[in-house]
């Protein structure tokens, strides 16, 4: 209810830092601010904005004079104005709904980014030029090999493996040179690096009972390269890392890194399954017997000590063995007995 009562206040006009004792009169459409005898400002109710809402006073400005400050300590005046000024009235309630909507929007956006990055990684990986991949792969190789005990020197073994990879590549019309390296480490593993590099560890060669098994692993890794999984994973991991780093504002946050790890692992399981299928097909086309793969996985599973599925970078071994089972056909052995012996002996120097 507008009243003609005069309320005490203080006023700064926003053009200088001076503060004046003032009085405020509430009229029908606006409030009149008087300093001494002069009316220095008339502010319409709809233009009023709150600058500060402290327990002891309320400070107002007007949309027309955003730098001016009117401080009201009179509780009655504050109440009267709050009733009449729309900006002041709905202030608290409206804010909550908007905040919840904003929070929800933020979660949706972040979740969307997490989902979008792996989807975009594939087409982006396809756009990466071959030289970039080659340079990146060479760089990674130089970093990785020393950690794996260095490359093995056995020439005949290397040439035998290289010839094998050329046969697979030729039969499947695979693009690009493939460089096969044998490293001295005792772990049972093999990697594909960008630019056509495959690293097979001596531990895997020792574990393999026949050249067919090694050929299966080789074909599997070459399939990874052919499908550009490696580049895709680099793009995806970089993208996810960036999203996490930006969202949390902290590149080392524990939550962030686990989230990225889980996201990148689950996608690489799909990649692994694809490489298994592709590798078996490649072996068959090259005329080799694909049993090697099934055999290899069966023996790997029998070894035991497998990691829980979600935390391992590979799907459970038995599942892989079963997936490849139905593709067995007859074929020529991958390497001659001589070549196989040479490969086994590649790291013996």
């Amino acid at each position, binding site marked *: 209810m507008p009243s003609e009562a005069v309320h005490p206040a*203080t006023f*700064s*006009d*926003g*053009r*200088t*830092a*001076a*503060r004046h004792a003032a009085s405020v009169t509430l009229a029908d459409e606006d409030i009149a601010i008087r300093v001494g005898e002069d009316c220095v400002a008339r502010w319409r109710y709809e233009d009023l904005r709150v*600058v*500060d809402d*402290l327990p002891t006073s309320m*400070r107002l*400005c007007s949309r027309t004079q955003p*730098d*001016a*400050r009117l*401080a009201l300590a009179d509780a009655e005046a504050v109440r009267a104005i709050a009733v009449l000024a729309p900006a002041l009235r709905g202030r608290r309630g409206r804010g909550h709904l908007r905040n919840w909507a904003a*929070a929800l929007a*933020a*979660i949706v*956006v*972040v979740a969307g980014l997490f989902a979008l990055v792996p989807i975009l990684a594939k087409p982006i990986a396809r756009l990466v030029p071959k*030289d*970039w991949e080659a*340079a*990146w792969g*060479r*760089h990674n190789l*130089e970093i990785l090999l020393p950690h794996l005990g260095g490359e093995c020197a056995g020439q005949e073994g290397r040439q035998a493996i290289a010839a094998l990879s050329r046969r697979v590549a030729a039969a499947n019309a695979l693009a690009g040179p493939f460089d096969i390296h044998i490293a001295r480490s005792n772990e049972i593993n093999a990697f594909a690096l960008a630019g056509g590099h495959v690293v097979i560890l001596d531990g895997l060669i020792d574990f393999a009972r026949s050249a067919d098994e090694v050929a299966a692993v080789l074909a599997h890794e070459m399939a990874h390269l052919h499908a550009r999984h490696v580049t895709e994973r680099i793009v995806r991991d970089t993208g996810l890392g*960036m999203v996490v780093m*930006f*969202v*949390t*504002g*902290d590149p080392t946050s524990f939550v962030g890194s686990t989230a990225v790890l889980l996201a990148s692992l689950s996608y690489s399981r799909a990649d692994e399954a694809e490489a298994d299928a592709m590798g078996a097909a490649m072996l068959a086309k090259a005329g080799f017997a694909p049993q090697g793969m099934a055999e290899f996985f069966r023996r790997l599973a029998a070894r035991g000590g497998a990691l829980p599925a979600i935390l391992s970078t590979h799907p459970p071994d038995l599942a892989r063995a079963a997936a490849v089972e139905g593709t067995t056909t007859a074929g020529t052995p991958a390497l001659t007995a001589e070549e196989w012996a040479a490969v086994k002996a590649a790291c013996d120097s």
Partner: protein
Amino acid sequence: MSIVTREPERSGSDRLPRHHFRQDGTGKAVFGIAVRNFALGILTLGIYRFWGVTRLRRYLWSSTRFLDDPLEYLGTGKELFIGAVVAFAVLFAIVFTTQIGFLIVLGPEVEELRALPGLIVGVLVPVAIYRARRYRLSRTAWRGIRAGQTGSALKYAVIWLAWTASLFPSFGLSWPLRAVALARYTMNHTMFGDRFFTFEGKATTLYRPFLVAWGAAAMAVAAFAGSVAVLQPTVPEAGEPAAPGVIIGFLALMLALLLISFWYRAAQMRFVARHTRFGDLSFSADIRGRQLAWLWFSNFLIVLLTLGLGLPYALLRGARLAAAALTVHGDAAAITVAQNALTASKTGEGLASLLDVDAF
């Protein structure tokens, strides 16, 4: 307007009125903000932090009063968010170009390039510091009049980098010169309304406390080196722990250096305050090293024991100490200052927050 003659000892001039900043913030309110920021931060996977920081600053600013009027913080979370996006894009472009781009063009043999992003980031730190301060000042107002900061972040960065580099060949002895150069550039470009602050300190005055601190630090290091020579004449094998006396001695050395640095920092703060003016107003800082040390250690414990949730409260305690220590000399009510015409930059702080050099 009265003309004030500068007195050598501030405390002797009883003719001038004195004013203090009043900090009325409560731990309860700040803790409420901290909990809310934490909860919403988790809920939005971190994106809320820009709005959370804004809310905290708004409280800290508005709970600080000068001449009965509160300071106002005019920044918004949206500005900080956009600033961070821009800074992120810039940083990413830099890292991408140097890491991957150069790698492809020049090949993996050029190992020196691995250090390039680090160097670029190092150069950007003073830029970020200057821009962040400019943003905060431009979003600070009192009685509706805005503060501000002019000058170029790049020029500041050059001063900062050149003087920081000088610390190495001089074994740290150029520190007071560096501090004065930085304070001069910063303060002379700081403004409230349409008037600039001025800083006219000379490094020679600062050298007296600095040399005392430097000498004490040198003696502490020498004492430690001597004790090591006595207790551990041979270098221990890898994996073998050093003699317990050496470890204790090292911790004692760190503690001594820390306390010496607090003592000196307080002296430097007093120096900067004493030589800063705003029109007819002058300043003094009544701060001692032991107050800084107490604040630092207790804040460290608070933040540690609350796993970070107590950080806003630690900032409040710092604000309280600053308000209690700073005195404004002169008739502040008589100062005439007009609104400045600086257009506020929209994106000031993104770089600082990404490089982790923003204060709060």
